[in-house]
């Protein structure tokens, strides 16, 4: 398991290489990129900010969770912070397992958990203004003012 938060462009192959191993028959790679259009609104750029020590702990927690759910798994996650332009890579998740189904499922699990528990935020910059994302559709919102038991553990 390998996790990092970086302030420079992510080399995708480097992340993949961290999970390549002799007993892996499948490697899935998720690449999260900066999208230009969101619900008709044009993004010019994004700024990502992290609470780095806690974000690292939570990424490691996700690593423990996937190890508990899937046998024989390796995972590497790199998340970029700072200013990103359209089409820049914000996050790369590489997962290797002996068989493909586990690699797909574990990879999806990891990105969903990042969006739930890892303290990283993005600010969208538009022609008409800017806003921290987090209370719109598609991002985590603790409607009861607190996370569920599952979020905490």
């Amino acid at each position: 398991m390998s996790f990092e938060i970086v302030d420079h462009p992510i080399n995708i192959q480097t992340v993949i290489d961290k999970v390549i191993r002799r007993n892996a028959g499948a490697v899935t790679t998720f690449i999260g990129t900066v999208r230009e259009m969101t619900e008709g609104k044009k993004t010019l750029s994004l700024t990502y900010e992290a609470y780095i020590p806690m974000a690292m702990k939570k990424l490691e927690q996700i690593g423990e969770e996937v190890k508990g759910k899937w046998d024989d798994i390796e995972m590497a996650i790199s998340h970029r912070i700072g200013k990103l332009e359209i089409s820049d890579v914000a996050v790369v998740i590489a997962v290797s397992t002996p068989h493909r189904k586990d690699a797909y499922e574990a990879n999806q699990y990891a990105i969903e958990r990042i969006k739930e528990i890892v303290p990283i935020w993005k600010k969208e910059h538009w022609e008409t203004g800017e806003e921290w994302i987090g209370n719109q559709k598609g991002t985590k919102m603790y409607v009861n003012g607190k996370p569920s038991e599952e979020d905490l553990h």
Partner: protein
Amino acid sequence: MITLLFFAGVKETIGSEAIRIDGKQQTIAQIKEYLLHTYPTLSLQGVMVAVNEEFALDEDIVEGNDTVAFIPPVSGG
């Protein structure tokens, strides 16, 4: 002293990424009350709190030298 850390929109409202407050024991709810009183434009709706990098609840008690982070809804990935 208890260190309070702020991020994203909360940081912008407070105008600082960290402040320090008196270090006696108090609950997270009391710290939130202090912040809302001190910064009238602040909203903590949907904001989670982490004590020493672990998520915590309003009734949890914070002591001197703890670091309390205010975590707006996250949006990484």
